[in-house]
């Protein structure tokens, strides 16, 4: 189960050349050859004027070869395992082969929708997702702007390293660190107690739990998420800044009128990618803090799937919960992409009619 934050979206994106604006992705060679570019298509020129397959193959074969490892990885670890989802429609047990398990049609889904715990998990997931999106998503952008405004390369490098290193810590460590600081016997509360004040239950209050997990996520992953925005910043034409400065634009105006618009496609792209996995709010983070805040506050779809599937032994029901989550995620991506198109952005893919 992957953790979903812009940071991971960034990681996934990094497999393909991510750092340019999507509009510029086509190899420039194509344009040089007078190849029909997307823009031409938009102009309504029919597709059939493309070069024949053989010609394109000869011309682009290196690109295809470069794609093979990535495609294989996707095939082996994403597309083939997808077929395992068929157990959501079976009464599966780990000692049976998938082909041997009895088929039960939609029964698991019926059970799922009759389980109030599932809706509790769904509700928590949605709340956490929205809160994380609002609180988390802007932080890497702000960090990127901060780093970008630093003049000394050394300071810049140091700052960058410090904020992205926590990404490499495991959740166990991150939560242990937070506990050392904010826990009931943590640094802050020990200080409060020794000065005659009452302890504040930062880590055990279920109603502030969404804030706590967002804070943990920000600390752990915001720096990592920043990297992709930094790359977007680097690709903004420096001459724009120069001319704006010449026209008398101050720092703030330059950021508002040049930097942010320049980053817009990347921001929209990441936002959509995030929406796709928005329901994957986290797993270890919630398992680890389950005892502290109670299951009612910390049950999310992924922990629900784990407790019913792996722990409870109802693998099929766990798979059904996972599948339901995937379907909702896909719908969200499609919707977000549509909205992006309406706003004139590319989104993650381009509608064929464009």
């Amino acid at each position, binding site marked *: 189960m992957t953790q979903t934050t812009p940071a991971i979206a960034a990681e996934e994106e990094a497999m393909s050349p991510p750092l340019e604006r999507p509009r510029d992705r086509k190899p420039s060679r194509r344009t040089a050859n007078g190849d029909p570019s997307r823009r031409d298509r938009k102009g309504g020129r029919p597709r059939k004027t493309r070069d024949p397959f053989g010609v394109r193959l000869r011309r682009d074969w290196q690109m295809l070869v470069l794609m093979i490892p990535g495609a294989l990885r996707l095939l082996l670890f994403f597309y083939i395992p997808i077929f395992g989802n068929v157990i959501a429609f079976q009464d599966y*047990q*780990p*000692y*049976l*082969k998938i082909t041997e398990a009895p088929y039960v049609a939609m029964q698991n889904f019926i059970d799922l929708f009759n389980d109030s*715990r599932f809706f509790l998990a769904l509700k928590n997931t949605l709340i956490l997702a929205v809160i994380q999106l609002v609180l988390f998503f802007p932080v890497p952008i702000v960090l990127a702007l901060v780093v970008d405004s630093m003049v000394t390369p050394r300071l810049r490098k140091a700052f960058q390293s410090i904020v992205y290193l926590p990404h490499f810590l495991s959740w166990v460590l991150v*939560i*242990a660190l937070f*506990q050392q600081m904010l*826990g*009931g*016997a*943590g640094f802050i*509360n*020990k200080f409060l*107690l*020794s000065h005659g004040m009452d*302890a504040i239950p930062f*880590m*055990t209050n*279920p109603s502030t739990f969404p804030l706590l997990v967002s804070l943990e996520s920000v600390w752990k992953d915001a720096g990592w998420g920043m990297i992709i925005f930094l790359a977007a910043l680097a690709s903004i034409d420096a001459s724009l800044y120069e001319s704006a400065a010449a026209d008398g634009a101050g720092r703030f105006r330059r950021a508002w009128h040049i930097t942010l618009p320049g980053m817009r496609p990347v921001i929209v792209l990441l936002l959509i990618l995030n929406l796709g996995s928005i329901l994957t709010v986290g797993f270890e983070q919630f398992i*680890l*803090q389950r*005892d*502290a805040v*109670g*299951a*009612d506050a910390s049950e999310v779809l992924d922990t629900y799937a784990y*407790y*019913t599937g*792996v*722990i*409870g*032994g*109802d693998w099929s029901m766990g798979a059904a919960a996972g599948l339901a989550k995937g379907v909702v995620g896909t719908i969200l991506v499609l919707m977000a992409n549509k909205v992006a198109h309406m706003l004139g952005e590319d989104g993650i893919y381009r509608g064929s009619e464009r």
Partner: protein
Amino acid sequence: MSFEVGRRQLLAAGGAAAVAVGAAACGGGSSQSGGAKKSAEVELPTYKALAGLTPDLKGNEQGLHNVYLNAPKKLVRTTDKKPITSGTIKALTQTFATPPPPMKSNPFWQNLNKQLGGTLDMQVVIDSYPDKFATILASGDLPDLMWVPPNQGIPNIGLMLESQFTDLTEYLSGDKVLEWKNLAALTPSSWRTAVVNGKIWGAPIPSTPFGQVYLGNPDVWKDVDGFQSNSAEEFLEKCKDVSIKGKRWALEPFLPNAFHMFGEWFGLPNGYRVNKDRTLTAATQTDEYLETLEYARKVFKAGAFYPDLNLAETSQYFANGTIAALVSVGPRGASEYRHYNKDLLADILIPFAADKDRNPVYDMGYGTVGFTPLKKTDDEKKIRELLDLINYLSAPFGTEEYMTVNWGREGKDYEVKDGNYTLTKSGDTNVPGLQSALQIMAAGEGVIYNPIADDSEYIYEQEKKLLENAQQSPIKGLYSDTASSKGTELSTRLSDVRDDVIQGRKTIDDFTKALKQWEEGGGKKILEEYAEVLPEDVPVTKDPKKK
């Protein structure tokens, strides 16, 4: 062990390593209907104590351990040939210690292989065993031996065993087991846990027959007149008195275990209560449970528990007095904390009456950590070879085989100093991780042995006191189809609510509601299924209140 064990009720032990695991602990049953009935009928392997063992203090039928105050002067040899004949045996097991160095660089392991006559290639799981177990099952590529822990939430065991593992009944049932001396020396109580669907699936792995106990750090409790108390209120007062805000806390923060301990003072049944009409009532359904819940809530509110529930350093904090009491798996744990603080022998709390008209109880444990079945095969030679191997590994304390498996070679991995075993420096790196993995795969009946003889005597004396109010779980070795398929999930949800109530996030009413859901979601059915197969010799549970 040199005592005769035959009667069922003393074998039938507390499915609950903790009330926390409740039905989960016992939930490893068959999912074929009627499996439970068949299990009650199978002829268990004949018990025959090993000759020649000489414990210093004798155990008894109720489960009291044999005690060795010093290393035995003469070791007994229990096997006459090297067990492995086919070259390599593969096994899946788990270690609870630091993982051992791999075979190539582990002389202790190499020596073990030499003594066994082949290679014992063990895959040692470090973290979640049920996950690994399920993955390996799903892959279809099973090792020869695979530890099955029925108390670790591996559901639907019956069907799984039938489809993937070997039925050993014809090799082990009745007198046939006598061919393997160490296996015959395992008590019928232990064997019970290896019977599913009326068939014997492997040799059981005995742990202590005792259940959890509260251990106290005597240095802390001496300020309040000792750890032992006379009522629940007094205990709570003592907890408050030993607490120092922000510096010292009375109790470790794992609530399910603490609740289990409190429950004993209030006379909660060990998982289930057997009524006069031979029906069953779950502990969660009793009034005592609600009283315990109320009390636990009060203790929590008083700030007696360490405030952070994810605590990794419990043992260290206990040893240095930051936490004054913790729950140990059994009385033998009292001497374990010398590892952190060499002067610390923990106090074992004897359950006391919560109030003056109460009968306190002490819950005995499950008795084993499961069993190790053999990958499905019809090859008699292979089966006999594997049984030879398990027989070797199951040798109890006081035998040469035990020393090979648990301590290694004298002079290299361990030495005898002042009549006691101690690991050498090389032994310290190579032995513990592997020894823990081997012990979880096969073991003989446990004994009390400590480097310090006084510790052993103290534990032995406390065990005697614990036994006075001991109660076994009525459902040990019984299987319910519903418990097996849904029990874990049902009980997890209920204990989630219980923990919320203790922490003040929910009310007792919420618990009553959740209990209703438990009953309707399958709890009632579980009770009926267990009651149906309840053997006649399981006694009616004692009344929790004095008349």
